[in-house]
């Protein structure tokens, strides 16, 4: 009990078993693909429909009308206010993640147009330290909300996160109320938040802005949980968890998501939603 994880990163990478597999091998049907093949198919397995992870920049390409995404706050970086040092220094981990992903932190954000509807778009990247939310991600989300409120356009937010970034200690926990406050101001401005939860959306992110979407959309098979199945299994010991425990499908059955949208349908679906939330000259 004492060692359980709550808001912090739980899914810091693929499951151990999968670790040995090539990332382009489908964990569900074991088909193997060339990267171009997967990319051309929106990273959905043509054989069985498994949804592979999508990196943030590729997600933007999948969703935004060509050439419309204008990234902002690209220079925003996490600081190291706690001078956090475990087996390695947080600063080192940050630098390494930036080199590995080409991203400044685990979220990119900017203005975009989706199916001819203007919006702000914020996309998380699980490859950057497990998509964990520290001060940089929190600030980027807040600024995206503020821009959406000012422009009176919806904010579309695509999440993929293991939770708060523990290397920023209590400050990472503070990103929860920080982003919640931003959603409140978005609401005051009558701008919509459309939350697209992808695998995995857990812990600190599902316990803040991601769950506050006016509409909550999930990708098939995504793990959407505050506490993931591994830790819950430790709590309940003997009890066998349901097969789809914590998955999007279970979440929909229990009333937490509005729709599970397969990736190929996501863009037109968002287009229709954005049209509905478009202000009639407000």
């Amino acid at each position, binding site marked *: *009990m*004492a*060692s*359980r*994880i*709550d*808001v*912090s990163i739980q899914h*810091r990478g693929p499951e151990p078993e999968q670790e040995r597999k090539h990332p382009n091998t489908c964990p569900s049907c074991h088909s193997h693909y060339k990267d171009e093949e997967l990319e051309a198919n929106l990273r959905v397995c043509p054989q069985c429909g498994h949804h592979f992870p999508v990196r943030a920049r590729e997600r933007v390409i999948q969703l935004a009308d060509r050439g419309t995404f204008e990234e902002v*706050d690209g220079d*925003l*970086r*996490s*600081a190291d*206010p*706690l*001078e956090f*040092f*475990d087996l390695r220094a947080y600063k080192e981990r940050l630098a390494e993640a930036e080199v590995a992903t080409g991203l400044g932190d685990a979220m990119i954000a900017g203005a975009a147009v989706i199916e001819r509807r203007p919006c702000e778009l914020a996309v998380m990247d699980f490859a950057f330290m497990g998509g964990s939310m*520290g*001060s*940089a991600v*929190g*600030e980027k989300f*807040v600024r995206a909300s503020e821009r959406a409120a000012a422009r009176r356009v919806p904010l579309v937010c695509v999440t993929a996160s293991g939770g*708060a970034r*523990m290397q*920023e*200690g*209590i*400050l990472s*926990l*503070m*990103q*929860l*109320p*920080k982003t*919640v*406050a931003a*959603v*409140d*101001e978005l609401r005051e401005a009558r701008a919509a938040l459309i939350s697209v939860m992808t695998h995995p959306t*857990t812990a*600190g992110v*599902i*316990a803040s802005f*991601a*769950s*506050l979407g006016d509409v909550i959309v999930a990708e098939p098979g995504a793990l959407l949980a*505050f*506490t993931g199945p591994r830790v*819950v299994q430790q*709590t*309940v010991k003997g*009890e066998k*968890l*349901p097969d789809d*425990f914590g998955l999007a499908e279970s979440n929909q059955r229990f*009333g*937490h998501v509005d729709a599970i949208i397969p990736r190929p349908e996501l863009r037109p679906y968002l287009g229709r939603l954005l049209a509905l939330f478009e202000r009639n000259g407000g």
Partner: protein
Amino acid sequence: MAAERTQGAVEQLKLRERLAKLRDLPLLRGVGVSGEMARLQRQIDRIGAAPTEDEVWQEVELARHQDRPYTLDYVERMFEDFIELHGDRALTDDKAIVGGLGRFNGRTVALVGHQKARDIRERVDRNYGMAHPEGYRKAMRVMELADRHGFPFIALVDTLGAYPGVKAEQHGQGGWLARCQLQMIRLGIPTVSCIIGEGGSGGAVALAVADRVLMQENSIYSVITPEGCASILWRDAGEAKKAAAALKPDAAHCFQLGVVDAVVPEPPGGAHNDHDAAARLLAASLSEALRDVESLDPVERRRLRHRKFRDMGVFLE
């Protein structure tokens, strides 16, 4: 390392400035009287001198001390005529969180708090202070009632975290923690939260989105338990001490990081040594904090609350 030492010195400087201001804050006026200021000074000084692992770990142990006063211990000492409210109106009465109305300083105040227990059976009944979504919904009900009637609102935070169980997940634990925060930040009434023991991650912050957030001297507030952090980063839960030192969950550090607005002193040795004295000190701090925020215009108060949380975090640009 040189850079780090310099940065440490800068922090110590900032800290001293803060401490100087602190003496003028109405919040801690009561503290000087009770002679706790000197101890607080020493404690905060320690940070400048970089507390050892052992020192941070001692705070963790004190925060979890089984004789430490729990929410209802404080309620019975601080409130008159407390009437507990029960149930989320939907599914159950989650006893890991208590809530109700009572008279505090002569006027009606609403309170919620996590509730741990000492007796084994009651511990199970209270689920060790780890609430399900239903507990947070009960808290939200009390907030809504308080807001409608203009009662000031106090939350006492003392939880290892929101409960990580099957039903808790199925019933939307993450979503309700989010909605609880959203409701709390919207309240028109004056709000004060205090971490009185363990402030464990999402389950704690859900009750701590307040105008003033206080921490008792020997409480901790953290994004993850030291054990959890150790098992992930050190791949060994036994390294909890190291993790605690790295996470800096103690009151002085949280104050230094701007996460809490004030530190509430405890009786010598810790709150567990003298529940009555601890309650008096807590009541004095809560009174000061409430008086402070009650003087604000409601719209302005809500704006400042938003601003405070909006500005949390440290980043480079």
